[in-house]
């Protein structure tokens, strides 16, 4: 205990003295492939993943661009970003804003011929009706989003940009990283380190596999020199000074942007957790280990250590998603409270209902993302899906309970708003316990705990 405290203090002291100088970035790393004759000097490569990050950002943008009359056009555009590999696709997000200038404007400038569909979770998604696979869910949603005005369907409460975005983050990025690159690709004979990733490449099999996992996380390469607020702010295009690490005046969407899960890790970390740096550090340490092998096959001991880093990443990454679901369960709870007040006073509930749909979409998307990690969530998954349901409970008490043969939503049931609020309370409790959450944003029972805390423990044996 004391020793640990000393170490922590010493580490903090060191950091305070040497400041950003200690922070390391993810890459560049030397080329270690034996017999490589090319002119490349940096073996780091995750451009394909960065390209998919901007594809995802752009897809989300498009999902909110339907106006009720442009369905066919919007749908084909969305499919181009989801399932297409065509050249010439513009980056719809992130785009330059004021003095926050981004370097790339087309996807191909980062990497060519990339799509999302090919990398989407192949398993069945239990949280969505009709036992669809990951990509079936996304394509179904794309179809619906194209006809919805601004991506929102007031009859069901579905906010498609949120649903598509949050689920795709899980079904593509999280799934690819934890179920592929940090899983089977760590096996000794899968993408070995003593061979180039593929003929003529300047990185080894293991180097590139690991880099790809890192690319899906979505952190800027210099994340260790950023605090949670700064890393979060980059995605919000807050301060180019913070984002532009190489000081070329532009933000490189490949190496200097915060995307997807790294953004949500930073969001949680603003409440005191350390997910972003923990995950980043594990990726960095793993990459250093691989680099240090200098192009030789990894020994069993090295691979065991690498698997240890991978486990750290998987655990924390899962927590990041669960923290986000927890946060939005709290938002949904608050939205229901607001809606109730408005309905009781006979006010106009439109805006509040819209906000409710948005938060519900984020909640649902993250909950389905948890499922897409490729491991059976067991009882937790079942309870989570039952508490949330297929759709938000509507003002009349119904909610989506299924999808019929022609692809139309079936609305049924009659659940009280109050009861749905209880579901959100139970959901937060479930997530907090199942995933040992500690950021716990928007905790709907936080006031209860604060009060209990303020009462303190009374002496149990004080008689009267």
């Amino acid at each position, binding site marked *: 205990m004391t020793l640990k405290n000393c170490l922590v203090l010493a580490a903090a002291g060191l950091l305070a003295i040497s400041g950003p100088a200690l922070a390391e970035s993810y890459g560049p790393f030397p080329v270690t492939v034996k017999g490589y004759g090319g002119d490349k000097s940096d073996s780091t490569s995750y451009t394909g993943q960065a390209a998919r990050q901007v594809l995802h950002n752009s897809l989300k943008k498009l999902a909110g661009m339907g106006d009720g009359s442009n369905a066919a056009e919007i749908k084909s555009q969305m499919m181009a970003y989801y399932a297409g590999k065509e050249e010439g696709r513009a980056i719809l997000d992130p785009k330059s804003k004021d003095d926050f200038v981004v370097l790339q404007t087309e996807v191909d400038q980062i990497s060519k011929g990339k799509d999302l569909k090919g990398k989407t979770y192949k398993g069945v998604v239990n949280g969505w009706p009709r036992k669809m696979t990951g990509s079936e869910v996304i394509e179904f949603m794309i179809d619906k989003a194209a006809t919805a005005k601004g991506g929102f369907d007031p009859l069901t409460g579905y906010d498609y940009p949120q649903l598509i975005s949050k689920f795709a983050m899980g079904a593509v990025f999280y799934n690819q990283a934890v179920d592929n690159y940090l899983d089977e690709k760590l096996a000794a004979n899968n993408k070995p380190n003593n061979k180039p990733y593929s003929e003529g490449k300047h990185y080894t099999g293991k180097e590139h596999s690991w880099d790809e996992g890192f690319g899906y996380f979505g952190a800027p390469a210099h994340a260790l020199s950023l605090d949670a607020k700064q890393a979060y702010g980059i995605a919000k295009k807050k301060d180019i000074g913070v984002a532009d690490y190489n000081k070329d005046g532009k933000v490189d969407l490949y190496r200097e942007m915060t995307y997807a899960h790294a953004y949500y890790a930073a969001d949680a970390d603003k409440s005191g957790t350390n997910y972003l740096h923990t995950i980043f550090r594990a990726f960095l340490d793993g990459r250093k280990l691989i680099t240090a092998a200098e192009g030789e096959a990894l020994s069993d001991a090295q691979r065991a250590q690498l698997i240890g880093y991978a486990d750290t990443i998987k655990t924390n990454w899962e927590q990041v998603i669960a923290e986000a679901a927890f946060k939005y369960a709290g938002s949904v709870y608050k939205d229901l*409270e607001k809606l109730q007040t408005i309905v009781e006073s006979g006010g106009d509930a439109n805006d509040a209902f819209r906000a409710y749909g948005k938060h519900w979409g984020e909640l649902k998307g993250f909950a389905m993302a948890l499922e897409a990690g490729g491991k059976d969530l067991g009882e937790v998954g079942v309870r989570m899906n039952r508490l949330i349901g297929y759709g938000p409970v509507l003002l009349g008490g119904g909610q989506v309970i299924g999808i019929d043969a022609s692809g139309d939503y079936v609305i049924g049931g009659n659940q009280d*708003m*109050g009861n749905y609020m209880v579901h959100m309370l139970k959901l937060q409790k479930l997530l907090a316990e199942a995933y040992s959450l500690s950021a716990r944003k928007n905790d709907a029972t936080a006031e209860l705990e604060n009060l209990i805390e303020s*009462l303190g423990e009374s002496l*149990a044996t004080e008689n009267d």
Partner: protein
Amino acid sequence: MFELTAQNLLADWAGQFLDPRKRLFWGYLGSAFLIALIWMVLLGRERPVSACRKLLARDLWCSASARADYAVFLINTILMGSIVPRLLGHAAVAVFCFSLLHDLFDGRASLLPDAPAWAIAAGFTLVLFVVDDLARYVVHRLMHAVPLLWAFHKVHHSATRLNPLTVLRTHPVEGILFVLRGALVQGLCIGIFVYGFGDRVSLVMVLGANAFKFVFNALGANLRHSEVPIRYWSWLENFLLSPAQHQIHHSENPRHHDRNFGVVLACWDRLFGTYCHSEPNQELRYGLGPAVADPHSLYTLYLLPFREGVGFLHRIFIRRWRRQLTPPLVPTDQYQSNRAIYEID
């Protein structure tokens, strides 16, 4: 590891005297001492020096009863600190109430939306205090009424001399019941208030303690367990229990048995017919009388209650078993053999 534990224990022991949320906080002990002194000098016409001598008398503080109090205090800190997670139940009860209310009233209530936060905090603090006082009355009364519970509460009443530390002369089993009582009361109040008033609820505190508790403790709550028979005017005793009234609760005299179960407010005893005024110049003998042979031994304080408790349970279950084992539910020969077993005692 052992060092850490020892340190924690020392901190726990010292904490009893340093934490203003606890009855034995040095400030409360000091104020009780002053109140007793002033009372003896002004009303008892004693000289300050002799009053002090009486209050600090060696035969009181070093009596067998007092020494048992100290031992129980030290031992309980070890036992309770390690086995009882003290705040766990509170949150469970609070969340349960809070959730239940959503279902009962379909959604979240926002009561008195225009009331200022200080008023709600004052209301919460008062309600918590009153409900807690009532719960203490009820549990205390049950401790006397139910033989199984009395076996454990007897430990508190076995004190033959009263000093402020007697307040901690409590069997750990009773301590666990107190934890549950606290969880129920606090969880209930917090759950209901937060449901109705949201983040406007807070506790009015003085030195980190509930303001009402603070006043109660600062005004000499420690004298309840002392031999200074401070009484109030008769009209005041009708509202607030005086130290002398709690001393009556500890009286060996059967005439005083089952009187004054309350802590702060007299209304519960008055309402449920267990109230008793203090008496002028009351001279009481404390404890359980000659029925208990060795009231201050660790065996009597810790193990005897279990033996007695098991005895009660044994008798109750034997009766049940007998009823269940009557024919024709059980074949006769088996019944006979069972009977033989159970009728040995």
